[in-house]
């Protein structure tokens, strides 16, 4: 990587190892896909560790990580770049996808399904053997750097949109789920600094909330939520107060569901 390349992606390099607790062979599988430059689809519920895993792998493979949180207003221009106006006229600015493809980085499109269909198709030429990105507005064809790796995440909840087969079939997939309770308690303890016994109690409550998935809740409490609750306990809140603030009150506004969550909280602690 040349000096200019290193400068362009300097801000996207991770300075410290992000903590990630593997639950299976996902590290080896990710490395295998990267070695063959195969795009990857990470599937799993919200807050189960997909983003942290990608950060960990970027650090492990010593590659910059360009992350884009996709949303319904994300345009193709937001990904590939656009012309800007300055005092001398117009100038082109690469978008995050172009930047990663041009200089060689892992481009992580978080919750790709949230983007509109006309935005999603932009990645198609980068995901097959062509590995290129046409910039029609600039009349340029960017050939992807050998170190470029495309990773997208997708949360296949019952309420989520379906990913189109034409997009889905370009990816190899890695499935993620919430860790087993003991392992999840260890993760929450490691992330928050709270003792394992109280983390286990918080995780037990989190596991209960997941029983309402599709029965009043789109999704139950994520590992991230439980880490937040544990962090609040470290700050001095009681377990019940922290779980109410970080989980029960955050999960739902539907009165019946909220009432049930609060009552379950009372019963749990």
């Amino acid at each position, binding site marked *: 990587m040349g000096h200019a390349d290193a400068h362009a992606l300097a801000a996207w390099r991770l300075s410290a190892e992000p903590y990630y607790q593997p639950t299976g062979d996902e590290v080896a599988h990710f490395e295998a896909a990267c070695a063959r430059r195969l795009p990857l689809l990470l599937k799993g519920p919200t807050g189960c560790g997909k983003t942290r895993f990608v950060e960990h792998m970027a650090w492990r493979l010593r590659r910059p990580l360009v992350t884009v949180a996709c949303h*319904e207003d994300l345009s193709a*221009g937001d990904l590939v770049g656009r012309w800007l*106006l300055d005092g001398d006229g117009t100038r082109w600015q690469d978008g995050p996808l172009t930047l990663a493809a041009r200089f060689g980085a892992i481009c992580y499109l978080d919750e790709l399904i949230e983007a509109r269909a006309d935005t999603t198709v932009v990645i198609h030429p980068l995901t097959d053997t062509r590995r290129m990105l046409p910039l029609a507005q600039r009349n340029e064809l960017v050939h992807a750097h050998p170190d470029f790796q495309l990773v997208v995440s997708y949360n296949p909840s019952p309420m989520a949109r379906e990913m189109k087969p034409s997009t889905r079939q370009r990816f190899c997939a890695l499935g993620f789920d919430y860790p087993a309770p003991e392992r999840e308690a260890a993760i929450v303890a490691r992330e928050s600094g709270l003792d394992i016994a109280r983390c286990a109690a918080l995780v037990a409550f989190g596991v*209960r909330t997941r029983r*309402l998935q599709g029965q009043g809740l789109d999704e139950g409490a994520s590992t991230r939520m439980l880490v937040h609750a544990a962090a609040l306990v470290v700050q001095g809140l009681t377990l019940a107060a922290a779980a109410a603030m970080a989980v029960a009150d955050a999960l739902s506004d539907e009165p019946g569901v909220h009432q*049930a*969550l609060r*009552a*379950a909280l*009372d019963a749990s602690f």
Partner: protein
Amino acid sequence: MIDSPTAPLTHWLRLLWNQAPPLHLHGDAPFIADGAIHLPACHPWRGHCAAAAHAAAHLVYSPRRFDTDGLVPIARTLLALLEDARTEALAMRELPGLARLWRPLHTATPDDGTGFEALLGRLARALADPAYVDPHPWVRKGRRLFYLDEGLGLPALCTPAALRDAALRLGHDIGQLRLPFNAEGYRPVPAYRDDHRWMWPADQQAAVQPPPAAQTAGGPAPPDPPWPETPSAVTRHPEWDRLIQRLRPDWCSVQTHSAVHRALSTGPADPAGPGPSPDPHAHALGRRLLSPLRALVRPVTRRGRSSDGEVFDLDALVDWQLAQRLRSAGDPRLYRAPQRQAGPGRVWLLVDQSASSATRLASRPHGAAAAHPLPGPTASADDGPTRLQAAARSATAVALALQALGLRCTVAAFRSQGRHAVRLDIVKRLTDPADGQLGQRLQALRPGGSTRLGAALRHATSRLGDGGSGVRWVLLLSDGEVHDIDVHDPHYLVDDARHAVRAAGRRGVRMACLALGAASRPPSTATRPLGEAQRIFGRRGTEALTDLSTLPRCLRRLMGSG
């Protein structure tokens, strides 16, 4: 389901133990029967919680049945009391907060006396509350027998045999004390505890009523289902009773059947291959529906200028350049503003399959040509399609148009035979393509049964769910007549359906009705169905359809754009 007053309790039991037994609010004492938990109607929330958690704890921790052989009433009562205490001890070990729910409801004290029923209350409290001190030797003996480690809340009595043995020993002591007991009039205390009728199968003649295993949220199917096939799911929904002005919880059972994979006599031979194309008439009609239905995917904002964007707005660039030359501050909004699109919408098309849909859509003058002749064995072009055939044709065209607009839809037909048997045939699931098989499946529907509309509407509403920025819409294709075999009040089902429509509106689900065969003007009694439909869906939510060629116009009116 969300409207049901038992919904929070149902959610709560699922959260605690992943149990979802049917809940019924009635009477004045809790009990477990027929796999359901029955709770008093007028308890406060915490009272309901205490009773529901106790009953559900039996479902989780209790054996399926108890042997009553050789047990006199006193021993039986003691066995039930010990089992109550054992299940609660296990529940409180898993969920310590339940102690704060149950223990305050134990109010027995030594002042209550030394009669057998008073001692039962004192023993129940002694086993539930370690902080309670009772001086009576019999109560203390019961506590010693019950606990392996009282401080840890570990019961020693883990098997039915151990419970029985302890009950016999305590019962023997009562016999020695010559204490009288009126078993018929006894009610367990505290009042949140059920009456144990599930424990004694011999009392229930042939019907064994053990504490039921985990039930699905839909509850058990009726014992004698009138439909020959086994439903893929049974879901209970409340129903609005106009006389008592409240919802009757879990009143109707909606039996969902999948018609997606059902063999069709006229279907394609190769199920793995692509579905057949819809007939050209449906395609032509579907194309005419694109314009009116486009209102469902209309952008939620107008296009304007923006300081950030993808494409320059040329007029804005010119204005900015002019401002530069005039040395004034130009408008920095140089880009075309992105138009915010609505999220992905979801639609339910509900086809009324009841017996009354067998009548003709409209009587035509003899020899007049139908605008859209329908193929099929039961209709000819001369006498016009039946209302069900017209509904099938309309639903196919609407589904095609929705698919072309990128909206996903479910198509379902419904009919009923009483509140326990509201049948819903899913003709097209949300993710299935609208192809020729959809038209064939719809045309294969045969009229039968009645129209319990409120249950079908509530089911569609619950499946459309909450949230999201996209439109959620239910379109009913019906003759507009609501009726069922177990309802004789002509206003009952109309008011119930109207309640369902309003409840759906509060959840952001819009509803509309195409009243097939109903006249739009009221010259005769034949207009009653339209009047009923208007009472249910409102004037703006109801359109009369007497000819398929007017379907685009009807939909445009329903969309509010005509």
